[in-house]
C-alpha cells in the first residue's frame, strides 16, 4: 500500500513536471534592455510601452506565447551591457529596446558576442550599422528623417534655411545630412550648434533674425530644446515663413502642453492627431495601447510596437522550424519584409531598413495634420505660418 502511494505520487510529480515543461516550451523569452530612469527615461519609457503592447497583441493571436523580461539600463552604456548579459543569463532568445546610439552600440556589441539578435528603433547613428554585426537590426535611421525634412523644405521651395541643432550625436549627424542635401539643392544654409544644457535660445535666434535672415528655421533637437527655441522665436519674431523640426515635436503631448508655441510648427509624424488607424494592425495596436495605458498612443510607442512585433514574428517562425538555438531568429529577421505601422520594413545586409521614410505633420488648431508626402497627407499645410 505504502509503495503504491509512493508510485502514485511519483507519477503525479512526473505528470506535473511534464505539463509544466510543455507549458513553458512554448513560452518564448524576450529580453528588453531600455532606459526607464536617467536622462533617457521618457523616451525609453515610451518605447517600453510599445513593446509591452506588442507582446499583449501577439499573445492574443499567436499559438506561441511571448514572455518579456525588462531591465532598466538607467541611460548608462555600462549598465546597458550589464543588462544584456543578465538577460542572456536568464535565457532570453533575443533582445529588443535600447535608446541612444551611445548606449545601443555597446549593448548590441554584447548581444553579438552572446549570439543574440538585437532589434531597436532608438538609435539613428550610422556607426551602429557599420560595425559589421550580423545580429543588429534597426527599423529607422537618419536618412528617413532627413528625407522627410528636406522633402518638405523642397516642396516649400526653401532658398535659405537656418539649422539650429543640439550637439548630441544623433542630432548633429542628422543636421549635417540635412545641411549637405539642402546645400546640394542650391539653398543657403546657416548652422547653429547648441549645447544640450542651454536654456536661453535668444542669442541664437537673434543671430538668425539679424545676421542669417533666413526664410526657414530647421530645429534638430528634443522637446525641451524645441520649447526653448520656439519661446525665443516668439519673443524675437524673426521674419521666417515656417519653423520645421523633427522627432518629438508634432505630437499630441506638445499640442496639449504648449498651445501657444505649437501653431503652424512642422515635425515628423506617422499619425495625425487625433490618431486615425486604417489597418487592422494599427487598430489592434491602438485598442491594446489605450486599454493598457488609458491615453493616445505616441510615436515612441509606435516604434516600440513595430520593432517588437517584427522580432516576435521572427521568433515564432524560428520556433516553428525548430531553429531557435541555431541562429534561427537572426535568419528569420533577415527574411522580414512587410508593411508595418511605420511603412515597409526590410533589413539590409547591415541590419538597417533602407525603406524607412518619415512623414511630416503640422500643428493646426490643437491637432496634428499630416502634410508630407502628398500621398499620405490628411490635410493642407498652412503656409506661410509661424506660431506668433
Amino acid at each position, binding site marked *: 500500500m505504502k509503495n503504491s502511494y509512493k508510485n502514485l505520487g511519483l507519477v503525479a510529480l512526473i505528470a506535473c513536471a511534464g505539463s509544466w515543461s510543455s507549458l513553458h516550451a512554448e513560452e518564448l523569452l524576450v529580453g528588453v534592455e531600455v532606459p526607464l*530612469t*536617467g*536622462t533617457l*527615461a*521618457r523616451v*525609453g*519609457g515610451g518605447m517600453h510601452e510599445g513593446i509591452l503592447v506588442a507582446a499583449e497583441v501577439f499573445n492574443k493571436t499567436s499559438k506561441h506565447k511571448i514572455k518579456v523580461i525588462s531591465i532598466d539600463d538607467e*541611460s548608462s552604456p555600462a549598465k546597458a551591457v550589464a543588462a544584456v548579459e543578465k538577460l542572456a543569463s536568464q535565457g532570453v532568445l533575443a533582445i529588443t529596446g535600447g535608446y541612444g546610439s551611445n548606449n545601443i552600440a555597446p549593448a548590441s556589441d554584447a548581444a553579438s558576442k552572446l549570439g543574440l539578435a538585437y532589434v531597436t528603433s532608438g538609435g539613428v547613428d550610422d556607426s551602429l550599422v557599420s560595425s559589421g554585426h550580423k545580429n543588429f537590426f534597426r527599423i529607422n535611421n537618419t536618412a528617413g528623417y532627413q528625407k522627410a525634412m528636406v522633402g518638405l523644405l523642397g516642396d516649400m521651395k526653401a532658398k535659405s534655411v537656418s539649422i539650429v541643432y543640439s*550637439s548630441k550625436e544623433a542630432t548633429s549627424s542628422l543636421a549635417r545630412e540635412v545641411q549637405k542635401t539642402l546645400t546640394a539643392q542650391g539653398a543657403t544654409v546657416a548652422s*547653429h*550648434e*547648441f*549645447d544640450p*544644457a*542651454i*536654456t*536661453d535660445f*535668444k*542669442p*541664437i535666434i*537673434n*543671430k538668425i533674425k*539679424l*545676421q542669417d535672415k533666413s526664410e526657414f528655421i530647421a530645429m534638430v533637437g528634443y*522637446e*525641451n530644446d524645441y*520649447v*526653448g527655441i520656439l*519661446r525665443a522665436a*516668439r*519673443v*524675437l*519674431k524673426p521674419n521666417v515663413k515656417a519653423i520645421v523640426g523633427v522627432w518629438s515635436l508634432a505630437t499630441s*503631448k506638445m499640442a496639449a*502642453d*504648449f*498651445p*501657444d*508655441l505649437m501653431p503652424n510648427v512642422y515635425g515628423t509624424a506617422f499619425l495625425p492627431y487625433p490618431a486615425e488607424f486604417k489597418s487592422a494592425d494599427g487598430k489592434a495596436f491602438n485598442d491594446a495601447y489605450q486599454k493598457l495605458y488609458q491615453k493616445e498612443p505616441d510615436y515612441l510607442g509606435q516604434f516600440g510596437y513595430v520593432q517588437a512585433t517584427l522580432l516576435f514574428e521572427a521568433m515564432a517562425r524560428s520556433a516553428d522550424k525548430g531553429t531557435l538555438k541555431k541562429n534561427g531568429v537572426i535568419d528569420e529577421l533577415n527574411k522580414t519584409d512587410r508593411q508595418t505601422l511605420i511603412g515597409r520594413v526590410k533589413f539590409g545586409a547591415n541590419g538597417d531598413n533602407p525603406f524607412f521614410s518619415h512623414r511630416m505633420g503640422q500643428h493646426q488648431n490643437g491637432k496634428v495634420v499630416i502634410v508630407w508626402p502628398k500621398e499620405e497627407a490628411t490635410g493642407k499645410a498652412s503656409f506661410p505660418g509661424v506660431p506668433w
Partner: protein
Amino acid sequence: MTELILQALYSGLLQGGSYALIALGLALVFGTMKVINLAHGELVLLAAYIAYSVESGLGWSPLLAIPLAMLVVCSTSVMVYLAVSRIQKDREINSLILTYGLGVMLTNLILLVWKADVHSTSSSWMQDAFVLGPFFSMNSEILFFGVSVLLMGGLWWWLARSWYGRAVRAVSSNRDAAKLMGINPRSTELVSFVVAGILATFAGVALFSYGVISPSYGGVLTIKAFVITVLAGIGSIPGVLVGALLLGVAEALTVTLASSALQDLVGMGLFLLVLFVMPNGLFGAKRRRG
C-alpha cells in the same frame, strides 16, 4: 553687431539673475554649515514640479503654487538637515555623500510621481514678450529677475541685521563660541536649511515659469549653483549675484560671438581663472560681507 551684443548682455544678465536665485540657498547652507547640499538642485526641481501640478491640475498661475511648494520644499529641506545633523565625524565630506544620495532619492521620487515627461508653463502671460527698446525678454524672466534681486537684498539684510541672521553668522564663524554666547547651533542651522528651502521654492517656480523641467535636471542645477557659490567666495551673498551675472553674461556672449557648444567651456574657464587669481573667490575671506 551692436544690436546682437546688447541683446546678449541683456539676456546674460537675466540668465545670471536666474542662476543667482538657484545658487542662493546652496551658498547660504555652504556658508553657515560648510555643508555642500548636493540635493539642492532636486529641492529646486521639487518646487518646479509642484508648480506644474498646480498649473495643470487646477489651472492656476504657477505663482499661486508658492505657498504649497514652500511647505513641501521646506519640510524636505528640514529632513535633509536632520539627516546631515546626525553625522558625528568629518561632516564636510560625509555630508557630500549623504546629500548626493538624498538627491538621487529625490530624483527617483519625482520620476515616480510625475513620470519622465518634460514640462513647462503653458501660461501665455509668462511666455509673452517684454520689449524694452532694443531689448527682448519674456515677462517671466523680468518678473523673476526682480524677485531674485529682492530676495538677495532681503537675505543680505537678514544676515546682517536680524538676530537670527547674526546668530547664523556667529555659528558659521565659531560654533563653540556661539554656544557660549547662548546661541543654539542646532536651531540656527535648522533655520538656515528652512531659509534655503524658501529660496529653492522661488527658484523652482521661476524655473518652471521660464524654463523646461525634467526629473534628471536637478544635478545640472546643483553643479551650476556650486560653481557660482565657489566663484562668489564662500558665504558671500553679493558675491553670488556678481558671480551669477558674470557667468550668465559670459555664456550669452559666447553663444553670440562664437558658438553655444562652447558656453560650458567658457563658464568653466572663467571659474578656473577666477580661482587661480583669487583663490577665495570674488568676495571671499577678507572682503566677505554677508
